[in-house]
């Protein structure tokens, strides 16, 4: 009951937020929150550290950007195409990577993502270093004009909420149960008759698709897809967001994304502008040393202990 109330409050805040805070910033935050949550699905619940998620985020950004700008697809369809193609890319990369574990899995995904990056940097349709600019926002359902930031915000909010709900459901589903069993003890899960590669692959593809959804949505918001989205730093950043917020918690990655995006945004124009990397570095070091469970994880632990 309490939980339900909590969700209601969060929802109300989300609905009211653009009245107070700059909507484009909020949309960016939402997109990264979705990206980090999608990533958490594979790291936090699947136990697999992917170091190549930028390929899905960036890939979907480019493809939906192209679909909207060149093919002139309606906005919803463009986003969908982007997300699905990220899923397909996830299937391809996942099939190769999923048989490996730990640091090797991380490295294969990184390698594949680097190759994808190479494709992006050298294909003409991405605009290379300049990025794919001027992607039209279009309309939602052919009715609502999305060039209005408020309208765009609610559109993004709806997409991201759907994404979060799907993730939350997947974690607490029959599939989620098997997934956590696999993370705990692969050999045992296999001996119980589970074809663990297929479960991991499904998780990976889901995660890739949702990461793609985030990337595609971001393209529409900023009307731009760039190499930043596909660069390995982005893969690193999403790991950091997830860890900072709290690995394997539902709300954690979103909170982590919120913190990082906010920091980047506000530090860039303050007196600390030139120190952004240093400040982020210091935050990560302290985070790893002193609150490893992440913000949400530590909070939960604190509540657990004090009540």
């Amino acid at each position: 009951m309490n939980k339900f109330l909590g969700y209601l409050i969060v929802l109300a805040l989300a609905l009211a937020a653009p009245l107070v805070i700059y909507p484009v910033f909020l949309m960016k935050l939402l997109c990264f929150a979705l990206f980090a949550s999608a990533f958490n699905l594979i790291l936090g619940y699947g136990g697999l550290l992917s170091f190549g998620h930028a390929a899905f985020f960036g890939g979907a950004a480019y493809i939906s950007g192209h679909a909207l700008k060149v093919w002139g697809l309606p906005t919803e369809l463009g986003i969908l195409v982007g997300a699905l193609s990220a899923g397909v890319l996830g299937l391809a990369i996942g099939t190769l990577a999923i048989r490996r574990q730990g640091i090797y899995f991380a490295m294969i995904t990184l390698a594949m993502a680097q190759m994808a990056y190479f494709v992006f940097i050298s294909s003409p349709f991405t605009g290379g270093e300049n990025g794919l600019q001027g992607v039209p926002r279009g309309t939602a359902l052919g009715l609502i004009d999305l060039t209005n930031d408020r309208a765009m915000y609610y559109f993004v909010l709806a997409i991201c909420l759907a994404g979060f709900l799907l993730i939350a459901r997947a974690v607490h589903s029959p599939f989620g149960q098997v997934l956590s069993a696999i993370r705990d003890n692969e050999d045992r899960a296999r001996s119980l008759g589970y074809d663990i590669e297929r479960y991991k692959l499904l998780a990976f593809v889901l995660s890739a698709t949702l990461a793609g959804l985030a990337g595609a949505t971001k393209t529409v918001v900023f009307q731009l897809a760039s190499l930043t989205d596909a660069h390995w730093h982005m893969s690193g950043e999403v790991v950091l967001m997830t860890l900072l917020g709290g690995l394997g918690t539902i709300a954690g990655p979103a909170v982590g994304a919120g913190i990082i995006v906010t920091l980047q945004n506000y530090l860039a124009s303050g007196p600390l502008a030139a120190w952004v990397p240093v400040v982020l570095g210091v935050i990560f070091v302290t985070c790893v040393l002193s609150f490893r469970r992440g913000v949400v994880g530590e909070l939960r632990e604190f509540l657990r202990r004090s009540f």
Partner: protein
Amino acid sequence: MLTDLLGFPPQVLFGQLLLGLINGAFYAVLSLGLAVIFGLLNIVNFAHGALYMLGAFATLGLTQYLGIGYWGALIFAPLIVGAIGVGLERVLLRRLSGIDHLYGLLLTFGLALVIEGTFVKLFGASGIPYPTPEALQGGVNLGFMFLPFYRGWVVVASLAVCVATWYLFERTKIGAYLRAGTENPRLLQAFGVNVPLLTTLAYGYGVALAAFAGVLAAPITQVNPLMGSNLIIVVFAVVVIGGMGSIMGAVVTGLSMGIIEGLTKVFWPEASSTVIFVVMAIVLVLRPAGLFGKPA
């Protein structure tokens, strides 16, 4: 005619192979350091590139402020940076022992941001020149290419360091401790081995190797705060191809990746920064533990 066949004179090919070997020597020393650190601390040392950069800056500082030239720096810079490494290990990394290596990666990632960011702020991003030591200026014409003496020296010095390290780790008792310590440090300690000290020294050694590469690089590239930030991920791939923690793997792969990269620069230059990852993906699919890694 070979030229017609290849589309360029064969001298270019030889030249590129030699250059590849020289670059490979850097990869070898850097990945060796990473491999040592991963081997014992189970930490993917993302700060390696930053420490390599510190090695180059130490060289510069030694020369500018203490009047210690290149040859002195070859000894002192690794010692200084190694000492910094020891400090980092004692104060920060130590506290991560026994937890998922993900956190080590993160911590060192953060450290790299801090170190590089600070140096950019202090010294700017375009770098500071460092002269080639007098004794090694000039070069020799090999017929197919002009080989600067300094580059030749880089290969010799790197190989010597690699062989010494390999011997230390694979043929001495310390090596056995290191390998055992990778797996179960607590138990090794219960047998009477001072594992914390071993860990600290191993990290210091790995860092010193990075700094050594930094000294070697200083006269070639600029002494630049960002010189390590893009290298790290390639070196990282080299270690994985060789097999995480394998000393031999790091050295052999380092050299061969240099050569492969050199060849790619002839045939498809734009792909030269990607080719290592292609090799890595292929290797990992065929040999999951890397070329020299032992499967778990």
